[in-house]
Protein backbone atom coordinates (compact mmCIF):
# COMPACT_ATOMS: atom_id res chain seq x y z
CA UNK A 1 0.00 0.00 0.00
CA UNK A 2 1.57 3.30 -1.03
CA UNK A 3 1.17 6.72 0.57
CA UNK A 4 -1.60 7.89 -1.78
CA UNK A 5 -3.70 4.90 -0.74
CA UNK A 6 -2.74 5.13 2.91
CA UNK A 7 -3.86 8.72 3.38
CA UNK A 8 -7.61 8.25 2.77
CA UNK A 9 -7.47 5.01 4.69
CA UNK A 10 -5.92 6.87 7.60
CA UNK A 11 -8.67 9.45 7.41
CA UNK A 12 -11.63 7.10 7.43
CA UNK A 13 -9.87 4.93 9.99
CA UNK A 14 -10.18 1.77 7.84
CA UNK A 15 -6.42 1.49 8.26
CA UNK A 16 -7.23 -0.34 11.46
CA UNK A 17 -9.43 -2.77 9.53
CA UNK A 18 -6.57 -3.19 7.06
CA UNK A 19 -4.15 -4.03 9.83
CA UNK A 20 -6.69 -6.47 11.24
CA UNK A 21 -7.00 -8.17 7.84
CA UNK A 22 -3.22 -8.46 7.54
CA UNK A 23 -2.54 -9.63 11.04
CA UNK A 24 -5.63 -11.75 11.49
CA UNK A 25 -8.16 -11.53 14.26
CA UNK A 26 -6.09 -12.67 17.20
CA UNK A 27 -6.71 -10.94 20.55
CA UNK A 28 -3.19 -9.51 20.58
CA UNK A 29 -4.01 -7.50 17.45
CA UNK A 30 -6.50 -5.39 19.41
CA UNK A 31 -3.87 -4.87 22.08
CA UNK A 32 -1.34 -3.70 19.48
CA UNK A 33 -3.89 -1.35 17.91
CA UNK A 34 -4.68 0.09 21.33
CA UNK A 35 -0.98 0.61 21.94
CA UNK A 36 -0.59 2.38 18.59
CA UNK A 37 -3.50 4.70 19.36
CA UNK A 38 -2.28 5.52 22.84
CA UNK A 39 1.32 6.03 21.69
CA UNK A 40 0.08 8.53 19.12
CA UNK A 41 -1.91 10.43 21.71
CA UNK A 42 0.87 10.54 24.31
CA UNK A 43 3.54 11.54 21.80
CA UNK A 44 1.26 14.28 20.59
CA UNK A 45 0.74 15.50 24.17
CA UNK A 46 4.47 15.50 24.92
CA UNK A 47 5.30 17.35 21.70
CA UNK A 48 2.63 19.94 22.47
CA UNK A 49 4.71 20.99 25.48
CA UNK A 50 7.41 22.35 23.14
CA UNK A 51 4.94 24.35 21.12
CA UNK A 52 3.04 25.71 24.11
CA UNK A 53 6.09 26.60 26.14
CA UNK A 54 7.40 28.67 23.28
CA UNK A 55 3.99 30.24 22.57
CA UNK A 56 3.49 31.21 26.17
CA UNK A 57 6.91 32.83 26.50
CA UNK A 58 6.43 34.72 23.27
CA UNK A 59 2.88 35.90 24.03
CA UNK A 60 3.67 36.85 27.63
CA UNK A 61 6.72 38.76 26.42
CA UNK A 62 4.62 40.71 23.93
CA UNK A 63 2.05 41.49 26.61
CA UNK A 64 4.79 42.80 28.88
CA UNK A 65 6.30 44.90 26.08
CA UNK A 66 9.31 42.64 25.62
CA UNK A 67 10.43 40.67 22.57
CA UNK A 68 10.84 37.28 24.20
CA UNK A 69 12.89 34.42 22.73
CA UNK A 70 14.56 35.64 19.53
CA UNK A 71 17.90 33.86 19.18
CA UNK A 72 17.62 30.09 19.06
CA UNK A 73 16.41 28.65 15.72
CA UNK A 74 15.55 31.79 13.82
CA UNK A 75 14.32 35.26 14.52
CA UNK A 76 11.31 34.10 16.54
CA UNK A 77 13.32 31.74 18.72
CA UNK A 78 11.29 28.75 17.56
CA UNK A 79 13.73 26.23 19.00
CA UNK A 80 13.97 27.91 22.41
CA UNK A 81 12.21 25.04 24.16
CA UNK A 82 14.51 22.47 22.53
CA UNK A 83 17.47 24.44 23.84
CA UNK A 84 15.80 24.59 27.26
CA UNK A 85 15.33 20.84 27.34
CA UNK A 86 18.94 20.24 26.33
CA UNK A 87 20.02 22.66 29.04
CA UNK A 88 17.89 20.90 31.65
CA UNK A 89 19.29 17.53 30.59
CA UNK A 90 22.87 18.66 31.15
CA UNK A 91 22.25 20.09 34.60
CA UNK A 92 23.58 18.68 37.81
CA UNK A 93 21.24 16.25 39.48
CA UNK A 94 20.79 16.87 43.20
CA UNK A 95 19.09 14.75 45.79
CA UNK A 96 19.02 17.00 48.86
CA UNK A 97 20.40 15.69 52.11
CA UNK A 98 17.72 14.12 54.28
CA UNK A 99 15.30 13.72 51.37
CA UNK A 100 12.88 10.81 51.33
CA UNK A 101 14.19 9.24 48.11
CA UNK A 102 11.08 7.26 47.23
CA UNK A 103 8.74 10.20 47.68
CA UNK A 104 11.23 12.54 46.03
CA UNK A 105 11.33 10.53 42.81
CA UNK A 106 7.76 9.25 42.83
CA UNK A 107 6.39 12.80 42.76
CA UNK A 108 7.55 13.92 39.26
CA UNK A 109 6.77 10.51 37.78
CA UNK A 110 3.26 10.59 39.22
CA UNK A 111 2.82 14.17 38.10
CA UNK A 112 3.74 13.51 34.46
CA UNK A 113 1.84 10.24 34.39
CA UNK A 114 -1.43 11.76 35.59
CA UNK A 115 -1.34 14.57 33.05
CA UNK A 116 -0.57 12.12 30.23
CA UNK A 117 -3.38 9.86 31.42
CA UNK A 118 -5.87 12.70 31.07
CA UNK A 119 -5.23 12.91 27.33
CA UNK A 120 -6.51 9.37 26.83
CA UNK A 121 -10.16 10.47 26.90
CA UNK A 122 -9.89 13.67 24.88
CA UNK A 123 -11.82 13.43 21.57
CA UNK A 124 -9.69 15.06 18.82
CA UNK A 125 -12.09 14.43 15.94
CA UNK A 126 -15.00 12.06 15.19
CA UNK A 127 -13.70 8.60 16.06
CA UNK A 128 -10.28 9.94 16.92
CA UNK A 129 -9.79 9.35 20.65
CA UNK A 130 -7.32 7.40 22.74
CA UNK A 131 -10.02 5.40 24.47
CA UNK A 132 -13.71 6.28 24.66
CA UNK A 133 -14.57 5.41 28.25
CA UNK A 134 -18.26 5.57 29.12
CA UNK A 135 -17.24 7.31 32.36
CA UNK A 136 -14.89 9.80 30.67
CA UNK A 137 -15.52 12.85 32.85
CA UNK A 138 -15.50 10.72 35.99
CA UNK A 139 -12.14 9.34 34.89
CA UNK A 140 -10.78 12.86 34.37
CA UNK A 141 -11.91 13.96 37.83
CA UNK A 142 -10.41 10.94 39.56
CA UNK A 143 -7.10 11.15 37.69
CA UNK A 144 -6.73 14.84 38.33
CA UNK A 145 -7.16 14.32 42.06
CA UNK A 146 -4.18 11.95 42.00
CA UNK A 147 -1.96 14.84 40.96
CA UNK A 148 -2.61 16.37 44.39
CA UNK A 149 -0.81 13.39 45.90
CA UNK A 150 2.18 14.11 43.64
CA UNK A 151 2.45 17.63 45.03
CA UNK A 152 2.27 16.40 48.59
CA UNK A 153 4.96 13.76 47.93
CA UNK A 154 7.22 16.38 46.36
CA UNK A 155 6.81 18.76 49.28
CA UNK A 156 7.27 16.11 51.94
CA UNK A 157 10.04 14.23 50.20
CA UNK A 158 12.47 17.05 49.55
CA UNK A 159 13.20 17.98 53.19
CA UNK A 160 12.79 21.69 52.62
CA UNK A 161 10.57 24.05 54.56
CA UNK A 162 9.61 26.11 51.54
CA UNK A 163 8.73 22.98 49.60
CA UNK A 164 6.59 21.64 52.44
CA UNK A 165 4.80 24.94 52.96
CA UNK A 166 4.25 25.28 49.24
CA UNK A 167 2.91 21.75 48.99
CA UNK A 168 0.42 22.30 51.81
CA UNK A 169 -0.77 25.55 50.31
CA UNK A 170 -1.17 23.99 46.89
CA UNK A 171 -3.03 21.01 48.24
CA UNK A 172 -5.41 23.30 50.13
CA UNK A 173 -5.97 25.25 46.91
CA UNK A 174 -6.37 22.25 44.61
CA UNK A 175 -8.81 20.37 46.81
CA UNK A 176 -10.82 23.53 47.44
CA UNK A 177 -11.31 24.22 43.75
CA UNK A 178 -11.98 20.61 42.88
CA UNK A 179 -15.41 20.92 44.55
CA UNK A 180 -16.72 23.79 42.36
CA UNK A 181 -15.10 22.19 39.32
CA UNK A 182 -16.96 18.92 39.73
CA UNK A 183 -20.18 20.76 40.59
CA UNK A 184 -19.97 22.96 37.51
CA UNK A 185 -19.12 20.18 35.07
CA UNK A 186 -22.19 18.40 36.44
CA UNK A 187 -24.32 20.81 34.40
CA UNK A 188 -23.06 19.64 30.96
CA UNK A 189 -23.36 16.06 32.20
CA UNK A 190 -26.97 16.77 33.20
CA UNK A 191 -27.74 18.36 29.85
CA UNK A 192 -26.01 15.65 27.79
CA UNK A 193 -27.07 12.77 30.07
CA UNK A 194 -23.69 11.20 29.40
CA UNK A 195 -20.37 11.02 31.22
CA UNK A 196 -18.39 10.06 28.13
CA UNK A 197 -16.47 12.92 26.52
CA UNK A 198 -17.61 11.81 23.07
CA UNK A 199 -21.19 11.75 24.37
CA UNK A 200 -20.77 15.32 25.61
CA UNK A 201 -19.65 16.49 22.17
CA UNK A 202 -22.38 14.54 20.37
CA UNK A 203 -25.02 16.16 22.56
CA UNK A 204 -24.01 19.68 21.55
CA UNK A 205 -25.52 20.84 18.24
CA UNK A 206 -25.69 24.10 20.19
CA UNK A 207 -22.69 24.55 22.51
CA UNK A 208 -23.56 24.12 26.19
CA UNK A 209 -22.01 27.51 26.84
CA UNK A 210 -25.23 29.05 25.54
CA UNK A 211 -27.29 26.88 27.90
CA UNK A 212 -25.21 27.54 30.99
CA UNK A 213 -22.73 30.40 30.65
CA UNK A 214 -22.53 30.75 34.44
CA UNK A 215 -21.48 27.13 34.85
CA UNK A 216 -18.88 27.62 32.11
CA UNK A 217 -17.43 30.63 33.90
CA UNK A 218 -17.25 28.73 37.20
CA UNK A 219 -15.55 25.82 35.45
CA UNK A 220 -13.08 28.14 33.78
CA UNK A 221 -12.15 29.83 37.06
CA UNK A 222 -11.86 26.47 38.82
CA UNK A 223 -9.67 25.10 36.04
CA UNK A 224 -7.39 28.12 36.38
CA UNK A 225 -7.01 27.22 40.04
CA UNK A 226 -6.66 23.50 39.35
CA UNK A 227 -3.76 24.06 36.98
CA UNK A 228 -2.20 26.56 39.37
CA UNK A 229 -2.29 29.43 36.93
CA UNK A 230 -2.32 33.09 37.73
CA UNK A 231 -4.22 34.61 39.60
CA UNK A 232 -4.23 31.34 41.57
CA UNK A 233 -0.50 30.59 41.20
CA UNK A 234 0.08 30.07 44.92
CA UNK A 235 1.73 26.76 44.02
CA UNK A 236 4.89 28.56 43.02
CA UNK A 237 4.54 32.02 44.45
CA UNK A 238 8.18 32.86 43.88
CA UNK A 239 8.13 36.02 45.99
CA UNK A 240 6.88 34.12 49.04
CA UNK A 241 8.04 30.50 48.98
CA UNK A 242 10.92 30.39 46.42
CA UNK A 243 9.34 27.92 43.99
CA UNK A 244 6.82 26.08 46.14
CA UNK A 245 6.80 22.32 46.08
CA UNK A 246 9.57 21.95 43.45
CA UNK A 247 12.18 24.13 45.20
CA UNK A 248 14.61 21.25 45.54
CA UNK A 249 14.21 19.78 42.07
CA UNK A 250 16.85 20.34 39.41
CA UNK A 251 17.44 19.47 35.79
CA UNK A 252 15.09 17.19 33.97
CA UNK A 253 13.24 16.16 37.12
CA UNK A 254 12.08 19.75 37.38
CA UNK A 255 11.43 19.58 33.63
CA UNK A 256 8.96 16.76 34.26
CA UNK A 257 6.96 19.00 36.59
CA UNK A 258 6.98 21.73 33.97
CA UNK A 259 5.91 19.34 31.21
CA UNK A 260 3.14 18.03 33.45
CA UNK A 261 1.97 21.58 34.12
CA UNK A 262 1.77 22.45 30.43
CA UNK A 263 0.03 19.19 29.54
CA UNK A 264 -2.42 19.84 32.37
CA UNK A 265 -3.15 23.35 31.14
CA UNK A 266 -3.72 22.30 27.56
CA UNK A 267 -5.92 19.44 28.71
CA UNK A 268 -8.00 21.74 30.90
CA UNK A 269 -8.49 24.15 27.98
CA UNK A 270 -9.44 21.25 25.74
CA UNK A 271 -11.84 19.88 28.35
CA UNK A 272 -13.45 23.29 28.70
CA UNK A 273 -13.87 23.38 24.91
CA UNK A 274 -15.23 19.82 24.87
CA UNK A 275 -17.73 20.35 27.65
CA UNK A 276 -18.95 23.85 26.80
CA UNK A 277 -17.93 24.75 23.24
CA UNK A 278 -18.94 21.49 21.48
CA UNK A 279 -15.39 20.19 21.04
CA UNK A 280 -14.56 19.36 17.43
CA UNK A 281 -17.96 20.40 16.09
CA UNK A 282 -18.46 23.59 14.12
CA UNK A 283 -21.43 23.90 11.76
CA UNK A 284 -21.03 20.32 10.54
CA UNK A 285 -17.43 20.86 9.42
CA UNK A 286 -16.47 17.66 11.22
CA UNK A 287 -18.57 15.54 8.84
CA UNK A 288 -17.32 16.94 5.52
CA UNK A 289 -16.64 14.22 2.93
CA UNK A 290 -14.86 15.22 -0.29
CA UNK A 291 -14.56 12.63 -3.10
CA UNK A 292 -14.89 9.87 -0.56
CA UNK A 293 -12.08 11.47 1.42
CA UNK A 294 -13.08 12.04 5.03
CA UNK A 295 -11.75 15.57 5.27
CA UNK A 296 -13.99 16.13 8.30
CA UNK A 297 -11.49 14.39 10.54
CA UNK A 298 -8.78 16.91 9.71
CA UNK A 299 -11.20 19.82 9.89
CA UNK A 300 -12.59 18.59 13.22
CA UNK A 301 -9.09 18.37 14.60
CA UNK A 302 -8.31 21.87 13.37
CA UNK A 303 -11.55 23.13 14.93
CA UNK A 304 -10.80 21.75 18.39
CA UNK A 305 -7.17 22.89 18.10
CA UNK A 306 -8.30 26.39 17.24
CA UNK A 307 -10.85 26.57 20.05
CA UNK A 308 -8.33 25.20 22.54
CA UNK A 309 -5.78 27.75 21.37
CA UNK A 310 -8.26 30.53 22.07
CA UNK A 311 -8.86 29.24 25.61
CA UNK A 312 -5.12 28.80 26.14
CA UNK A 313 -4.64 32.39 24.98
CA UNK A 314 -7.19 33.45 27.62
CA UNK A 315 -5.13 31.58 30.23
CA UNK A 316 -2.03 33.52 29.16
CA UNK A 317 -3.89 36.79 29.00
CA UNK A 318 -5.19 36.36 32.55
CA UNK A 319 -1.68 35.45 33.73
CA UNK A 320 -0.32 38.66 32.26
CA UNK A 321 -3.14 40.78 33.68
CA UNK A 322 -4.15 39.77 37.19
CA UNK A 323 -2.12 39.88 40.41
CA UNK A 324 -1.97 36.90 42.74
CA UNK A 325 -4.68 36.13 45.30
CA UNK A 326 -3.92 35.93 49.01
CA UNK A 327 -4.55 32.41 50.31
CA UNK A 328 -7.45 33.36 52.60
CA UNK A 329 -9.11 35.28 49.77
CA UNK A 330 -8.56 32.30 47.50
CA UNK A 331 -10.17 29.83 49.88
CA UNK A 332 -13.03 32.20 50.69
CA UNK A 333 -13.70 32.72 47.00
CA UNK A 334 -13.80 28.98 46.46
CA UNK A 335 -15.82 27.83 49.45
CA UNK A 336 -18.09 30.81 50.10
CA UNK A 337 -18.79 31.93 46.56
CA UNK A 338 -18.17 29.30 43.88
CA UNK A 339 -19.50 26.27 45.80
CA UNK A 340 -22.87 27.78 46.87
CA UNK A 341 -23.34 29.36 43.46
CA UNK A 342 -22.74 26.12 41.60
CA UNK A 343 -25.10 24.22 43.95
CA UNK A 344 -27.84 26.77 43.27
CA UNK A 345 -27.11 26.45 39.55
CA UNK A 346 -27.49 22.67 39.63
CA UNK A 347 -30.80 23.06 41.50
CA UNK A 348 -32.17 25.38 38.85
CA UNK A 349 -30.88 23.41 35.88
CA UNK A 350 -32.25 20.12 37.23
CA UNK A 351 -35.71 21.48 37.98
CA UNK A 352 -35.92 23.39 34.69
CA UNK A 353 -34.79 20.40 32.69
CA UNK A 354 -37.34 18.17 34.42
CA UNK A 355 -40.13 20.64 33.72
CA UNK A 356 -39.07 21.05 30.08
CA UNK A 357 -39.03 17.29 29.57
CA UNK A 358 -42.50 16.99 31.12
CA UNK A 359 -43.81 19.75 28.83
CA UNK A 360 -42.14 18.04 25.86
CA UNK A 361 -39.79 20.83 24.83
CA UNK A 362 -36.89 18.53 23.99
CA UNK A 363 -35.09 17.82 20.73
CA UNK A 364 -35.51 19.08 17.17
CA UNK A 365 -36.68 22.65 16.73
CA UNK A 366 -37.63 22.84 20.41
CA UNK A 367 -33.93 22.69 21.27
CA UNK A 368 -33.54 26.43 20.68
CA UNK A 369 -36.46 27.17 23.03
CA UNK A 370 -34.92 24.88 25.64
CA UNK A 371 -31.60 26.65 25.25
CA UNK A 372 -33.26 30.05 25.58
CA UNK A 373 -35.03 29.11 28.82
CA UNK A 374 -31.82 27.72 30.32
CA UNK A 375 -29.92 30.80 29.20
CA UNK A 376 -32.44 33.19 30.73
CA UNK A 377 -32.41 31.30 34.03
CA UNK A 378 -28.61 31.41 34.05
CA UNK A 379 -28.51 35.10 33.37
CA UNK A 380 -31.09 35.71 36.12
CA UNK A 381 -28.97 33.79 38.63
CA UNK A 382 -25.90 35.70 37.50
CA UNK A 383 -27.68 39.02 37.86
CA UNK A 384 -29.00 38.09 41.32
CA UNK A 385 -25.50 37.04 42.41
CA UNK A 386 -23.97 40.29 41.25
CA UNK A 387 -26.77 42.24 42.94
CA UNK A 388 -26.22 40.42 46.27
CA UNK A 389 -22.48 41.02 46.04
CA UNK A 390 -23.04 44.68 45.19
CA UNK A 391 -25.31 45.20 48.20
CA UNK A 392 -22.88 43.47 50.56
CA UNK A 393 -20.03 45.54 49.21
CA UNK A 394 -22.15 48.66 49.67
CA UNK A 395 -22.98 47.93 53.34
CA UNK A 396 -19.36 47.02 53.99
CA UNK A 397 -18.25 50.29 52.46
CA UNK A 398 -20.82 52.26 54.47
CA UNK A 399 -19.71 50.59 57.70
CA UNK A 400 -16.13 51.42 56.89
CA UNK A 401 -16.95 55.02 56.06
CA UNK A 402 -19.02 55.46 59.26
CA UNK A 403 -16.12 54.10 61.27
CA UNK A 404 -13.71 56.46 59.57
CA UNK A 405 -16.03 59.40 60.16
CA UNK A 406 -16.35 58.51 63.87
CA UNK A 407 -12.57 58.34 64.10
CA UNK A 408 -12.21 61.74 62.47
CA UNK A 409 -14.86 63.26 64.78
CA UNK A 410 -13.04 61.87 67.84
CA UNK A 411 -9.83 63.42 66.63
CA UNK A 412 -11.45 66.85 66.16
CA UNK A 413 -13.21 66.92 69.56
CA UNK A 414 -10.17 65.64 71.43
CA UNK A 415 -8.39 68.36 73.48
CA UNK A 416 -5.73 69.94 71.37
CA UNK A 417 -2.48 69.20 73.14
CA UNK A 418 -0.57 71.63 70.99
CA UNK A 419 -1.43 74.51 73.30
Amino acid sequence: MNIAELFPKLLDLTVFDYLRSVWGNAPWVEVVLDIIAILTVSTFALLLVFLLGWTERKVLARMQDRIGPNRVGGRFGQLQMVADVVKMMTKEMIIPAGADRIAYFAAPILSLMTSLLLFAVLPFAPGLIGVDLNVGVFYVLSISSVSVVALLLAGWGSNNKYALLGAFRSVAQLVSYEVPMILSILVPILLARSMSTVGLVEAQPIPFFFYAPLSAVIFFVASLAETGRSPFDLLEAESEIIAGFHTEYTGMVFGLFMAAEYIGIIFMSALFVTAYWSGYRLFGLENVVLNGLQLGRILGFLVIAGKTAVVFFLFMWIRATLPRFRIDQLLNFGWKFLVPLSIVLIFVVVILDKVLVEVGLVGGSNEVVRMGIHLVSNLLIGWATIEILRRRAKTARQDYEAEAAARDAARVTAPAHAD
Partner: protein
Amino acid sequence: MDQILLDYLPIAVLIGIGIFFAVLLPSLSVSLGPKPPKDRNLAPYESGMVAIGEAQRRLPVKFYRIAVLFILFDVDIILLVPWAVAFRKLGVYGLVAMLIFMVMFILGDAWVWKKGVLEWE
Protein backbone atom coordinates in the same frame (compact mmCIF):
# COMPACT_ATOMS: atom_id res chain seq x y z
CA MET B 1 -10.94 -11.13 29.40
CA ASP B 2 -13.95 -9.01 30.20
CA GLN B 3 -14.82 -6.33 27.68
CA ILE B 4 -14.97 -3.77 30.46
CA LEU B 5 -11.41 -4.59 31.46
CA LEU B 6 -10.25 -4.48 27.83
CA ASP B 7 -11.60 -0.92 27.67
CA TYR B 8 -9.08 0.04 30.29
CA LEU B 9 -6.14 -1.70 28.65
CA PRO B 10 -4.97 1.45 26.80
CA ILE B 11 -4.98 3.27 30.14
CA ALA B 12 -2.64 0.65 31.55
CA VAL B 13 -0.41 1.05 28.49
CA LEU B 14 -0.45 4.81 28.99
CA ILE B 15 0.61 4.39 32.63
CA GLY B 16 3.54 2.37 31.33
CA ILE B 17 4.45 5.06 28.79
CA GLY B 18 4.22 7.75 31.45
CA ILE B 19 6.52 5.87 33.80
CA PHE B 20 8.91 5.09 30.92
CA PHE B 21 9.29 8.76 29.94
CA ALA B 22 9.41 9.94 33.52
CA VAL B 23 12.27 7.53 34.31
CA LEU B 24 14.10 7.93 30.99
CA LEU B 25 14.41 11.70 30.99
CA PRO B 26 15.85 12.13 34.52
CA SER B 27 18.26 9.24 33.96
CA LEU B 28 19.53 11.08 30.86
CA SER B 29 19.95 14.06 33.11
CA VAL B 30 21.95 11.95 35.56
CA SER B 31 24.30 10.64 32.89
CA LEU B 32 24.73 13.93 30.99
CA GLY B 33 24.93 16.36 33.87
CA PRO B 34 28.11 17.50 35.65
CA LYS B 35 29.12 15.75 38.86
CA PRO B 36 30.74 18.31 41.11
CA PRO B 37 31.79 17.39 44.65
CA LYS B 38 28.69 16.77 46.69
CA ASP B 39 29.13 18.16 50.14
CA ARG B 40 27.57 21.57 50.74
CA ASN B 41 25.37 21.63 47.66
CA LEU B 42 23.24 18.81 48.96
CA ALA B 43 22.04 20.92 51.88
CA PRO B 44 18.37 21.95 51.71
CA TYR B 45 17.88 25.40 50.25
CA GLU B 46 17.00 27.97 52.86
CA SER B 47 17.86 31.25 51.17
CA GLY B 48 21.59 30.66 51.62
CA MET B 49 21.49 30.15 55.39
CA VAL B 50 22.35 26.90 57.11
CA ALA B 51 19.05 25.07 57.53
CA ILE B 52 17.65 25.12 61.05
CA GLY B 53 15.97 22.00 62.34
CA GLU B 54 13.91 19.39 60.54
CA ALA B 55 11.82 20.39 57.55
CA GLN B 56 9.29 17.60 58.02
CA ARG B 57 7.62 19.29 60.91
CA ARG B 58 4.14 19.89 62.25
CA LEU B 59 1.93 22.27 60.34
CA PRO B 60 -1.07 24.43 61.27
CA VAL B 61 -4.30 22.50 61.67
CA LYS B 62 -6.12 24.75 59.19
CA PHE B 63 -4.69 22.77 56.25
CA TYR B 64 -6.06 19.59 57.81
CA ARG B 65 -9.49 21.21 58.23
CA ILE B 66 -9.61 22.07 54.53
CA ALA B 67 -8.57 18.54 53.57
CA VAL B 68 -11.25 16.93 55.76
CA LEU B 69 -13.84 19.32 54.41
CA PHE B 70 -12.84 18.39 50.87
CA ILE B 71 -13.22 14.68 51.56
CA LEU B 72 -16.71 15.20 52.99
CA PHE B 73 -17.80 17.31 50.03
CA ASP B 74 -16.16 15.04 47.49
CA VAL B 75 -17.98 11.96 48.75
CA ASP B 76 -21.24 13.89 48.50
CA ILE B 77 -20.51 15.13 44.99
CA ILE B 78 -19.42 11.76 43.66
CA LEU B 79 -22.95 10.54 44.38
CA LEU B 80 -24.32 13.38 42.26
CA VAL B 81 -22.39 12.48 39.10
CA PRO B 82 -24.01 9.11 38.26
CA TRP B 83 -27.36 10.58 39.22
CA ALA B 84 -26.79 13.43 36.72
CA VAL B 85 -26.49 10.87 33.93
CA ALA B 86 -29.59 8.91 34.88
CA PHE B 87 -31.89 11.52 36.39
CA ARG B 88 -34.39 11.59 33.52
CA LYS B 89 -34.97 7.87 33.86
CA LEU B 90 -35.27 8.12 37.64
CA GLY B 91 -38.42 10.23 37.33
CA VAL B 92 -39.85 12.62 39.89
CA TYR B 93 -38.90 10.35 42.79
CA GLY B 94 -35.22 10.48 41.84
CA LEU B 95 -35.39 14.22 41.46
CA VAL B 96 -37.04 14.85 44.84
CA ALA B 97 -34.75 12.40 46.62
CA MET B 98 -31.66 14.07 45.25
CA LEU B 99 -32.99 17.56 45.96
CA ILE B 100 -33.47 16.57 49.61
CA PHE B 101 -29.94 15.22 49.61
CA MET B 102 -28.67 18.49 48.16
CA VAL B 103 -30.56 20.53 50.75
CA MET B 104 -28.70 18.55 53.41
CA PHE B 105 -25.52 19.27 51.50
CA ILE B 106 -26.26 22.99 51.60
CA LEU B 107 -27.16 22.83 55.31
CA GLY B 108 -23.79 21.18 55.93
CA ASP B 109 -22.07 23.93 54.00
CA ALA B 110 -23.93 26.61 55.96
CA TRP B 111 -23.08 24.94 59.29
CA VAL B 112 -19.39 24.74 58.35
CA TRP B 113 -19.47 28.38 57.32
CA LYS B 114 -21.20 29.50 60.56
CA LYS B 115 -18.81 27.49 62.72
CA GLY B 116 -15.95 29.43 61.19
CA VAL B 117 -14.18 26.41 59.75
CA LEU B 118 -13.56 28.38 56.58
CA GLU B 119 -11.90 31.28 58.41
CA TRP B 120 -8.18 31.40 57.69
CA GLU B 121 -6.54 32.72 60.91
